[in-house]
């Protein structure tokens, strides 16, 4: 189980860190400027919102130091905008490392933030949210306001999470962004692998390659197994339309297609996130920034 390749190798597992500023928007002090910082196990996300609209956001890899990762992600989202920390009226931290967001005024669980964020991105018809991150799978049920009504998550085992995809990308030498597309290039869907333990992923894959399976087929079998695991979690929490997927795996077409098949429903379509800022990968941070605004207004009133 080796995930860090030699320096001279291409790091296929390393997903692109990115940031965007919506340049058609200008901030001024009249706006309620808030931030949501979602420190996940693998990615740290920060979103800046002006009143109720996304202004800028950034996603980077979580380092070994959570407070440092939170700070970095937030300053990356603010870079070049002229914004300073003082301009942010309220900051909410969320995610696995939420208690380690030093500049946050408050920490809120990522379950609440993802439901809120999904409600904002896709609208009030969303009832079931599946969030698949680096080492978490969460199936969340919410009402028309984005309030959580029930949820389930993988609390004992990381099998079938995004981390496994990283291991496969590295082993099969396929850039992580293309892995979903690649997994769909099979004439016939192979049966799912029997075991999705991330620690065993490498041995599992090597076994199939030795048997003469193509890379595509190996990936398809693993992705299939992951999708079944995720689909089962959604079934246990109860599937109610509309259904959406957030987190890193929302951009993995191989996963999305197979979950839709396993559940027999279509997800609401991926929004035009580059232009609108409605990026499903930062749904948690968007939810956190929305909570930040509500909390700021509440504080002003009292």
């Amino acid at each position, binding site marked *: 189980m080796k995930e860090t390749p030699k320096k001279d190798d291409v790091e296929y597992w390393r997903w692109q860190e990115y940031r965007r500023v919506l340049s058609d928007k200008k901030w001024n002090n009249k706006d309620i400027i808030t931030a949501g910082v979602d420190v996940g196990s693998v990615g740290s996300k920060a979103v800046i919102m002006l009143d109720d609209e996304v202004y800028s956001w950034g996603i980077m890899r979580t380092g070994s130091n959570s407070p440092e990762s939170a700070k970095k992600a937030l300053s990356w989202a603010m870079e070049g905008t002229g914004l300073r920390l003082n301009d942010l009226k309220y900051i909410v931290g969320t995610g696995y490392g939420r208690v380690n967001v030093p500049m946050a005024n408050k920490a809120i669980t990522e379950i609440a933030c993802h439901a809120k964020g999904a409600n904002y991105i896709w609208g009030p018809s969303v009832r079931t949210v599946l969030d698949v991150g680096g080492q978490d799978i969460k199936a969340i049920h919410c009402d028309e306001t984005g309030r959580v009504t029930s949820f389930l998550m993988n609390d*004992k*085992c990381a099998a079938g999470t995004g981390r496994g995809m990283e291991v496969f990308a590295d082993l099969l030498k396929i850039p992580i962004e293309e892995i979903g597309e690649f997994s769909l290039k099979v004439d016939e869907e192979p049966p799912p692998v029997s075991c999705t333990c991330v*620690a*065993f992923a490498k041995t599992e894959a090597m076994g199939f390659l*030795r048997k003469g399976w193509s890379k595509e087929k190996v990936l398809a079998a693993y992705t299939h197994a992951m999708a079944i695991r995720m689909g089962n979690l959604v079934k246990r929490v109860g599937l109610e339309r509309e259904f959406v997927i957030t987190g890193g795996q929302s951009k993995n077409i191989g996963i999305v297609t197979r979950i839709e098949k396993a559940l027999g429903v279509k997800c609401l379509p991926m929004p035009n996130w580059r232009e609108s800022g409605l990026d499903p990968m930062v749904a948690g941070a968007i939810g956190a920034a929305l909570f930040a605004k509500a909390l700021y207004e509440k504080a002003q009133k009292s």
Partner: protein
Amino acid sequence: MITVGIDLGTQSVKAVILKDGAVISRGQAFSGFDPAKAAEQAVGEALKKVKLSINDVDHVTATGSGMDMAPYSNSTISMMGADAKAGVYLFPKARTIIDVGAEEARAVKCDEKGFMVDFVVNERCAAGAGAFIEAMARALEVKLEDMGPLSLKAERASPINATCVIFGESDVVTLIHRQESKPEIARAVFDAMADRVSSMVHRLGINPDVVLVGGVAKDDGFVASLKRKLGVDVLIPEYPEFAGALGAALIAVSRVKETQK
């Protein structure tokens, strides 16, 4: 009579050569992508040390997760069967054999003749196997071989969640940020793993003597934690990682005797 036992593990292949039932040579190679080739290397190395060729061998028995890929093999034996045979050969009073390898952990209950009576294995989860220590060593930025000595310096233990290798890594990172010392974190890692393994053994029932084999048995840190958790003494042979191959080679002896009858 020359017999060979080959143990094709997920991380390395081990070979043991016996002459009339006594060990005369050992060989080892990394499994890599081609375990069959690694097995040829391990056997070749072991034969070379005692100036023998494969033609001098009467019977080859293979074991381990890759036993179907073994070259030269005349027969196979389950990993549990090999563990039981080797455990009782090494320690005649052994009745419980624990084998912790890179990706597998198992406990085998056996009788006085080295026949398996019952067993438990970790299925589909790496939490009780060597991969766990490897991942944690990486998270701690400590060399794998330094984990054991480091853990023995700990004054107390800080519990971590060991239900999953991946979650364990996060726990280790949290402990680092809580400024826990490296020895204490290393100790926590071994305690967590020993917890998993001992719960497996408890399902079988602890019948002394208890023997620990497999590559992880070379780690003093794990051994100390396991002894604490089990509350009994644990015997370890000189070459614990070769136990599977030894068991297979002993089975090869009995298979030759069967055909001679």
